[in-house]
């Protein structure tokens, strides 16, 4: 059983690294978003540093959503999804493996790159760790909520377009607690730990709900 789980995980990681795998696209999209915002708001560093965490969190959220529609669509199109269904491994665990692979190639790099991109929005040094910490803990929730959306839209032709629309409202709690936890480092009444722990709870909850919902959605698609 665990052999099959690891097989899916390793295969997805290898695919993301291969040419055309799109593993690093989320990072480039994240950089692009963080560069675009100051063009809209102006180069005033004081303004940018106040909303730095918000820009970084929005960038990470959108960068995660952008690559999600390919999570199951690729396997659906070339028939490997039928293979995964024929495995003794329960579909929920298969979805868990794919979600984990997606997080490792998308969420984790975003969280690690966030402090560096914080320089572009004059993020103060003491805010860098909170932003990276909240992203590290929050992006799994984004990946697994997104996995449900990806499973629902796997069979559709233009699934890629409606996925963000389906999933974005569900990610609102993650966004709220992620940004408020990061902002606590910029001063303000909210302590860091309260929203951070809620964010951890959200991630753990979506890990379970998202996996089960996505597996159910894949069983419907025929």
């Amino acid at each position, binding site marked *: 059983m665990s052999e099959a789980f690891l097989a899916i995980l390793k295969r997805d990681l290898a695919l993301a690294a291969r*040419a*055309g795998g*799109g593993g690093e*696209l989320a990072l*480039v999209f994240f*950089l692009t978003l963080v560069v675009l915002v100051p063009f809209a708001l*102006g*180069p005033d560093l004081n303004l940018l540093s106040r909303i730095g965490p918000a820009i970084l969190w929005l960038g990470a959220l959108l960068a995660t959503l952008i690559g999600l529609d390919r999570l199951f669509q690729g396997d659906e199109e070339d028939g490997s999804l039928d293979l995964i269904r024929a495995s003794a491994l329960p579909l929920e665990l298969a979805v868990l493996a794919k979600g984990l692979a997606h997080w490792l190639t998308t969420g984790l790099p975003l969280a690690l790159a966030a402090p560096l991109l914080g*320089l572009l929005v*004059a993020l103060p040094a003491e805010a860098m760790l909170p932003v990276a910490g909240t992203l590290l803990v929050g992006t799994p929730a984004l990946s697994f909520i997104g996995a449900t959306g990806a499973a629902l839209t796997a069979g559709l032709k233009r699934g890629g377009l409606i996925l963000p629309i389906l999933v974005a409202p569900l990610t609102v709690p993650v966004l709220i607690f992620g940004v408020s936890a990061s902002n606590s480092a910029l001063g303000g009444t909210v302590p860091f730990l309260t929203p951070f722990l809620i964010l951890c709870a959200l991630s753990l909850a979506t890990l379970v709900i998202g996996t089960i919902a996505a597996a159910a959605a894949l069983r419907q698609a025929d």
Partner: protein
Amino acid sequence: MASLIELANPTRFMRLSSRLLPWFVGAAALLLAVGFYLAFFVAPADYQQGETIRIMFVHVPAAWLALMFYSMMAVSALGTLVWRHPLADVAQKAAAPIGACFALICLITGALWGKPMWGTYWVWDARLTSVLVLFLIYLGIMALWRTLDDPSRAGRAVAILTLVGFVNVPIIKFSVDWWNTLHQPASVFRAGGPTIHPAMLWPLLILAVGFTLLALALHLVAMRAEIMRRRVRTLTIFEAERLDRLAAEVAI
């Protein structure tokens, strides 16, 4: 133009480039050595910025090379689309990572130069921001190369993207300048203008030529590698089919 066509033949290019390569590398090494010696030990410190002016000796050449390589890619893109020059998209593909690296060097050295001067690593200065946007364009082009694996089709697609980007670079430069001056009073960062001290101009020019030769040498090596990669790819497919036919004959 005739020589350009002759160069088209990959094997001739491979022979020519292997002869040229040692000269490029030798000259680049010499110039860089002399340039760095002058930059560090001979050039005086700037009266206003002190020693940090020495970062200029890598920052400015890197900016030039980022732009120069993008222009080379634009010319190669024309070569692919208009003159159908077979080596054009090889040159184009080989140039992208090198240009991107120099843009990255320009950004990093710019940030490290900015910290002692303005107290923060990144200021949305007009020129630095333009290089940042250019860096994003480079990343886009390299991403497109990675997603399209069939060389001939990919070459034309990337050529179009490069040319579209090339047309936009001046527009971006203008709009960033406008955006920057609109919001911020005249930027403090004025060094590097033509009026710099001659004792600094010489090391800068020597280093610039040195870096350019190094970049061109790298470009040649990258092109050779790309030509061989394509040859390996076609030979592997050909080999697989040949063995397949052989196995089929044996089976009958």
